[in-house]
């Protein structure tokens, strides 16, 4: 077999190999995505919410509800996820975060503190369905949906 023919054959084989490699990689990537979507747990995204229970002197209707984001801030400031127009609430008063499929509440050094079921929150605490959170003059109920 002459050199030129050998080289030509090698070129064809090389091209096939290169694309076989890329094809296999693509196949694995697609398989990964399929297994990942099959195993993915229920998104905790909108699976919890806060419902206003009591709001003395604050223009918020009891029964109004806020869907929780994975990182939700509560406070008077307009940048908060849950805005409470209450002069007793700090600008950024408290935060609820979803980690490891649990919801955690912490107080962001607010002036008047955050109460969880009438106890002041220190550090980060885990929330259970039906917990009552009090920020300023507003009481919110934590509900799992």
């Amino acid at each position, binding site marked *: 077999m002459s*050199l030129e023919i*050998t*080289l*030509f054959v*090698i*070129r064809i*084989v*090389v*091209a096939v*190999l*290169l*694309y*076989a*490699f*890329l094809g*296999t*990689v*693509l196949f*694995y*990537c697609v398989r990964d995505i399929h297994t990942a979507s099959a195993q993915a747990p229920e998104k905790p995204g909108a699976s919890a919410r806060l419902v206003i229970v009591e709001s003395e002197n604050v223009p918020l209707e009891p029964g109004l509800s806020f869907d929780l984001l994975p990182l939700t801030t509560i406070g008077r400031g307009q*940048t908060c996820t849950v805005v409470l127009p209450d002069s007793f609430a700090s600008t950024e008063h408290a*935060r609820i*975060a979803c*980690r490891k499929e*649990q919801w*955690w509440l*912490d107080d962001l050094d607010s002036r008047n503190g955050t109460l969880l079921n009438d*106890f002041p929150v*220190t*550090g*980060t*605490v*885990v929330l259970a369905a039906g917990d009552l959170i009090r920020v300023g003059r507003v009481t919110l109920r934590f509900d799992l949906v």
Partner: protein
Amino acid sequence: MHTNSLVSTNNKRERVLLILAALFVALIRIALTLARHLPWYSLWPLLVWGACALLLHIGLTWLLPLRDPIILPVVMLMAGWGIVLTARLAPAFSTRQPIWLVVAALASLAIARLSPGLRILRRYRYSWLIAGIILLAATLIFGVNPSGGANAPRLWLGFGFIYFQPSEILKLLMVIFMASYLADKRDILSVKPLRVWKITLPTPQYIAPLLLMWGFCMILLIWQRDLGTASLFFIIFLGMLYVATNQTGYLLVGLVLLMLSGLAGYFLFDVVRLRVDAWLNPWPEASGRAFQIVQSLLAIASGGLFGQGIGQGSPTYIPVVHSDFVLAAIAEEWGLMGAVGVIASLAILIFRGLRIAAKNVDQPFKSLLAAGISLSLGIQSLLIAGGVLKLIPLTGVTFPFISYGGSSLLSGFVMIGLLWRLSDPATNRRIDQPIFSEPSLEFTP
């Protein structure tokens, strides 16, 4: 979890892909030997490549059983292709590249092995970056250029016959610094912005340390006239800031700044003016100052769909084809088919990197580091591939893993070593302190 079955699928996938990559690299090297009538003993780099692949596969199976199995074969395919191309394009360097591959492979294994590694990187970010800056500053005094030339930028440090380019390491340290800084401060950077006429800017006291450190790097790089790396740094900086804060304002401001600095560079630096002129219209000076880009275009055109054949084209007409213009050589000898293959491999690598970032989204340092590494590989390839194809003005950076160059290969493999670590969920659970205080499981009334 089905950890055991996952580990065995992982290893099997890596083996299958590595075997395909090995066949590809071996065949192109044999074809080169036949086409150029090289002696058979010149095939020894193949053995080195095989040894590296085997070492990394076995080492990683032992150290990080749950790592991403696709990264190693893709990187080894590109590195093997790079070794073949070095032998083809710059035979004088053909001994060095395999040796650098061994060094790089060992370095990536070391990164995968070191137990406190990533936490140390995170905690002492200022020290690391300053060390990198000092190393780069050393090139201002002791710098050399291995290929000689009186006016060539002296970007290398020489130790005997080994040359090293500190900007490659600085790039890596910069990515680590930014990931670490932004992981700690991104809440502040994205939550409490300063609004100046519809554009949100961060509060100065938090962005200042970042700008200061980045400014040091940029000043040094511009002082060295290493403008390719400087533009690379700038775009990586913008990209990471955007990924961390999700503020489009940064991107807009950054792009305007990039345009302005490009304009200033055009009037201040001859290099920039030359590159931009050659990009706008290279043909009037095709045999003069725009020789390189014109030769590159001719090489790509003559490659066509399937290329001239391995070792059968004439890519060596392009100056420094073995480092910056390696994509033009691939396009000439392997054709569009080869060029698309290279770009697809890189795209897969970046996709896997970003996937690691997405999987670690609850751990900001890991996530940002993976995203930063993928971004820097992607942007670097984009800059040089675009430059070679005359889509954008040429910036002299290397094509990751394929270009000849020890420092580039080494820093590439270190990045990959970090990606391996970040991709293994079983290690380093605690590198990342959470954004807020660690939740305690007890209920504290």
